[in-house]
């Protein structure tokens, strides 16, 4: 597995100045001209936007898509849901997380776990999309 180091991570919700260290009086830091803004997870995940919500995943039906029970999901309500999006939908008033599949006139909620069959949205069902899942966050132990 290869990975790319992204550099320091800014703390939650706090905007750090571009250059926060004390410049030594004698010899200017050669790095001072190259300081970039630090990376913020809040910004990356967009969780400070008014239309973005955090929810907790309950169940294993999306495991194949890398979404596990207990994960945090970042849900964006400003995105227009389309075919292939992982969505939080309200199916007969129950909030569910599934992959949205639009085939012809059919709306299908797909799981990513062979244990769970596709769920076709039927005429008598009450159905709406609550938001689109943009990221999930999982703790690895501890």
């Amino acid at each position, binding site marked *: 597995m290869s990975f790319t180091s992204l550099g320091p991570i800014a703390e939650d919700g*706090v905007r750090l100045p571009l250059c926060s260290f004390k410049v030594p009086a004698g010899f200017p830091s050669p790095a001072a001209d190259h300081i970039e803004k630090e990376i913020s997870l809040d910004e990356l995940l967009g969780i400070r936007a*008014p*239309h973005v*919500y*955090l*929810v*907790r*995943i*309950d*169940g*294993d*039906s*999306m495991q194949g898509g890398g*979404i596990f*029970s207990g994960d*945090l*999901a970042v849900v964006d*309500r*400003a995105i227009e849901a389309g075919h292939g999006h992982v969505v*939080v939908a*309200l199916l007969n*008033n*129950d*909030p*569910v*997380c*599934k992959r949205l599949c639009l085939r012809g006139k059919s709306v299908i909620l797909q*799981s990513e776990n062979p244990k*769970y069959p596709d769920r076709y949205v039927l005429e008598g069902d009450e159905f709406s999309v*609550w938001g689109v899942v943009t990221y999930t966050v999982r703790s690895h132990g501890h």
Partner: protein
Amino acid sequence: MATKPDPVFALIDCNSFYASCERVFRPDLAKVPIVVLSNNDGCVIARSYDAKPHVKMGEPYFQIKHRLEQLGIVAFSSNYALYGDMSERVMSLIESMLPAVEVYSIDESFADLTGIADATAMGRALRSRILQCAGIPVGVGIAHTKTLAKLANHTAKRLQAHTGGVVNLCGDHERDWVLRNTAVSEVWGVGRRMTAHLESMGIRTAMDLAKADPWSLRKKFSLVIEKTARELSGTSCLALDEPDPPKQEICCSRMFGKRLTELAPIKEAVATYMMRASEKLRAQKSYCKKIRVSIRTGMFNPDEAKYAKGVVVTLPYPTDDVRLLTKAAVDALEHVFQPGFRYSKAEVLLLDLRQPGEFSDDLFAVNQPAEASRVMAVLDAINDRWGRGTLRAASVPGNPDWGMKRELMSQSYTTRVDQLWRVSCE
């Protein structure tokens, strides 16, 4: 020659805001009537539309509990963490679409639509974006003055089905129709007493007030009602965003979750209220020279002995130091507490507030030590970052048994990571 365009204001107001917030995370209650209760689950302070015919505002919960159950109305304790967060979301969404917004209260804001070609279309766009992104239905009233925008909003709500929640009164025809069909008591800023005065002068509708002579209204009553009349007739007198001046006194008073008879828990309550009051004091960057502490028993139960007393304490110097304020408040409590009563409420009031620079540093006067201000800055920074009450005076308990009764509270879905909305993957 180019003329300045007439100003256009919008009032964006959330429908049954508290109930709507509860419904965002309880889709099963979309068609179930909801009421929200005051602190301590005392009385009804908010109702969804479908609950309004059955429940009056202010009705005591214990009296209507049974009726609510029979009618299938669901009651909630007030969840201000949720309502506050959802309010911020709604206001941010409005600010993302319009340059000048004045947040007027937790569930309404004024915005400047001057120069926007199709104000009604903007109103509809606001409505649909807020509904999609926050799940909160809003009404939008549009007009040339703030008072008329408020009236337009009122009409949008009253005639929801006809208007789609957006009413534009910039045209004379629409404006006059609404003015004729609105009682003067419904006009923004006209209270019950003013209504009685106006009606005795034959001013019954908003139109009557719009046509009344503003000068004689001013002479007879006040500048406020004169402005209201001018605004109704289409002359803008109230600008967007006139910031409130700093408050002249700060109050924190709450009912206890149960009756208290001992001094010790009342001291805890007073210390807790003082912590909150001093936070407000520092937030508006004031200092206070006097405090008033008062306690009282319940006043309605005929079987209980009644008692109420307060005392004013003058502090050695104007201060915002919670340690000094708490000590003064708790000491003062000794002077008003009488054993043998069942106390229901305490109040702390910060008085004689001053802005820095308003009190002169005379050479021999004692001032708040600089290090106290630094300690307070650290205290506020810590609580700002890790949540209110993280760092507090030792006299303030974390989870007091006299605290507010909130037995029907929903989760803090958006502000507590341990209470997030659970979405099923099954």
